[in-house]
């Protein structure tokens, strides 16, 4: 991923010559581009599905901006079309989205001190991709609060725009994707790149492996809960291993 260095002349001081807000927003968008390539095929497929469904087309179309999360949107629309119990549909979709709570908790501290109204606005785009792109960038530690807001906003606008645009285009044009191109693999190929970047330490690598293993074993879990269960299992495994490593370091045998 491209990385905007802070453009500083004096890295040791606080009063740095910072890159402009627009430059940081562009950097956020640029770093988000691989994720955009990953979600557009999914957006096109969802849009095509909505165009051919029996649901009220306006309600189906509104689900994209209202839910702003692909897996839960797909779950909701499929269950609605199948005529499921409304309460069960809402519960299932929210269970699929429960992981967003974790992303919110891990992103929010980077926006501490921002006024509430802006924080509530920034929260609208909390999702897998914004979390995975922004948090590692913030952890490099060279962006101030203003820079983080600009970077996050640039990344979010590009992602959300492409997501809503791809669904709208497919719904209006009724686009069909050629199966042979295997564009459905764009999302896993984008995400595996993020895996490669996020497994720098052994606990992180073990957490990712546990997440993948548990989701496969738990594929049949009710209400599409396998992803959430696997995520929590991966976090637990990583924390336990991390604590043990720290313990070993502190008490050499």
């Amino acid at each position, binding site marked *: *991923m491209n990385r905007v260095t802070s453009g500083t002349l004096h890295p040791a001081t606080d009063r740095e010559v910072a890159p402009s807000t627009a430059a940081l927003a562009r950097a956020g968008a640029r770093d988000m581009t691989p*994720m955009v*390539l*990953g979600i557009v095929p999914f957006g096109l497929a969802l849009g095509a599905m909505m165009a051919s469904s029996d649901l009220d087309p306006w*309600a189906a179309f*509104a*689900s994209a901006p*209202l*839910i702003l999360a692909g897996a839960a949107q797909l779950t*909701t629309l499929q269950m609605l079309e199948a005529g499921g119990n*409304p309460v069960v*549909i*809402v519960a299932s979709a*929210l269970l699929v*989205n429960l*992981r*967003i*709570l*974790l*992303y919110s*908790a*891990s*992103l*929010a*501290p980077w926006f501490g001190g921002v006024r509430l109204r802006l924080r*509530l606005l*920034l*929260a*609208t785009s*909390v999702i*897998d991709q914004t*979390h*995975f792109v922004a948090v590692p960038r913030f952890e490099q530690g060279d962006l101030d609060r203003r820079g983080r807001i600009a970077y996050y906003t640039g990344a979010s606008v590009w992602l959300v725009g492409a997501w809503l645009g791809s669904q709208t285009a497919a719904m209006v044009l009724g686009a069909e994707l050629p199966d042979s191109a*295997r564009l459905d693999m764009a999302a*896993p*190929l984008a*995400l*595996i*790149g993020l*895996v*490669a*970047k*996020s497994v720098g330490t052994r*606990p992180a690598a073990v*957490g*990712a492996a546990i*997440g*993948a293993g*548990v*989701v496969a074993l738990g*594929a049949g879990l009710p209400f599409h809960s*396998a*992803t959430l269960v*696997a*995520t*929590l299992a*991966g*976090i637990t495994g*990583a*924390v336990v291993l991390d604590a043990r490593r720290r313990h070993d370091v502190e008490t050499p045998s």
Partner: protein
Amino acid sequence: MTAWLVILAVGLGTYAFRAVGFVVVGLPAWTQRPLAFVSPAALGALVGGMLLTGHGHAEVPALAEAGAVVAAFVTVRRTGNVGRGILVGFPVLWALTWLTG
């Protein structure tokens, strides 16, 4: 009408999840370490769900898919560039699909 209400409820609930961290100020210190592992664990689960499951149970991925994912992983480990991983992964996918097809 039901469709509208259901979609609205899912949207509102999802936004509540998004906003929780941003509204509750000052998370307790013990949350720091688990939160650091949210990314790898969630990514592993998401990619695993895409590649290792199908029709509601565990599944071995096709050789072409596995090869493409490994190629993308290695590329990103070497270059640190996620976009390049996708650019390498697709030709590998197409070539292996053609070879094994």
